[in-house]
């Protein structure tokens, strides 16, 4: 109800969260609490359930046990209403037949927001100036990932869930990811990423480790 936004305005609390498929536990129980501006890194071996955890947090899967909630007290944070999340999965969620520009335009109309950052500007930030009009089929793996990051960058959802955001990117691309994440944190957003521990993360990162897959 307060008008000023403080770091404590927004929080993600995960309590004893478990997910099971066909009675078999995939991950959990896991608990952690994050607040505005936090970065959380989920680690764990292949098959530990990192992707599954992000899908649960995105509301794509229902938790089997435990719970999580996303709370806000501020009103002056960017629209749209909480608790919408932005998701960057292993798959980029882009149409290979369409150009980068068309993909970002489609995502914009889907989210119904009108971000300050223009489509071509976002693509240029991601180092894709000159590639805006090519169908994604003709871009390299890392360039496609950059298109997905450009789409993410324009999405001011308070909670970002990023599945291995550094994968397939060169050194410059990884720096871009780090700076995009930093901006989201500056905006008082929360960022949850999964990682295999090869990239160095900033101090203050909340580390969560999932036990190895059964």
């Amino acid at each position, binding site marked *: 109800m307060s008008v000023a936004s403080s770091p404590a305005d927004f929080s993600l609390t995960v309590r004893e969260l478990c997910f099971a498929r066909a009675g078999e536990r995939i991950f959990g129980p896991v608990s952690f609490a994050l607040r505005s501006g936090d970065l959380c890194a989920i680690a764990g071996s292949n098959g530990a359930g990192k992707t*599954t955890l992000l*899908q649960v947090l*995105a*509301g*794509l*899967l229902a938790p089997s046990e435990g719970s999580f909630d996303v709370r806000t007290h501020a009103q002056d944070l960017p629209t*749209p*209403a909480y608790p*919408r*999340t*932005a*998701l960057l*999965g*292993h*798959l*980029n*969620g*882009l*149409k*290979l037949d*369409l150009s980068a520009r*068309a993909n970002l*335009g*489609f*995502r*914009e*109309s*889907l*989210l*119904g927001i009108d971000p300050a950052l223009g489509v071509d500007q976002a693509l240029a930030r991601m180092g894709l100036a000159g590639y805006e009009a090519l169908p994604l089929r003709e871009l390299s793996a890392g360039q496609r990932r950059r298109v997905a990051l450009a789409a993410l960058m324009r999405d001011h*959802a308070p909670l970002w869930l990023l599945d291995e955001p550094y994968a397939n990117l060169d050194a410059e691309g990884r720096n871009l990811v780090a700076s995009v994440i930093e901006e989201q944190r500056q905006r008082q957003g929360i960022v949850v990423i999964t990682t295999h521990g090869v990239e160095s993360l900033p101090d203050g990162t909340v580390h969560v480790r999932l036990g190895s897959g059964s």
Partner: protein
Amino acid sequence: MRDLLLGVRRPDDALQPLLFALIVTALFPLAIGADAARLAPIAGGVSWVVALLAILLGMDNVYRSDAEDGSLDQLLVSGQPLAVLCAARMLAHWLVVGLPLVLATPLLATLLGLPSTVVGVALVSLALGTGVLVAIGHVCAALAVAAKRSVILVPLMVLPLSVPVLIFGAGAVQATMVGLPATAPLLLLGAGLALAVPLAPVACAAALRLNAG
């Protein structure tokens, strides 16, 4: 919303369904024989079956391609009401596949020798019926998203469900041909469409959520 519609398919694709309908229609005289006396009585039924098959083609991919490139997850987390997105998809699909079929009816009818008195009824029945068929198709495609890739699964789900549409639609045309009034079957088709428009998007959204993750 405009982008939503455009995002689904490009406008230059719109001619292709028309061509497809034309070619498939041309198959029948080729297979059955050019004898007008034999073609004309079945022309109404044939154009209905053609419409159904044309709509079916590629129905499988409506949501599956989204699931496979991760776009479906983006739709689901977008925070938009999923049923509205589904409705937009259906409308786009009908505009691209259904409408050309309806517009082509006079041409197809001429090719098959359908009496010109019947063309009007054929047109109206197709306009109503293709809408219902697209709606049914989308619900089935959404249900099939989680199934392993199999091309025929969706047609197998859709075809039995579309039998009533086909019976009323082709029935309306047949009735007019023998001089009976076609109001009843057309009204029933209209009722079907009136039901499908609000219900199908909701069912579609529910099916997609069911299959998510």
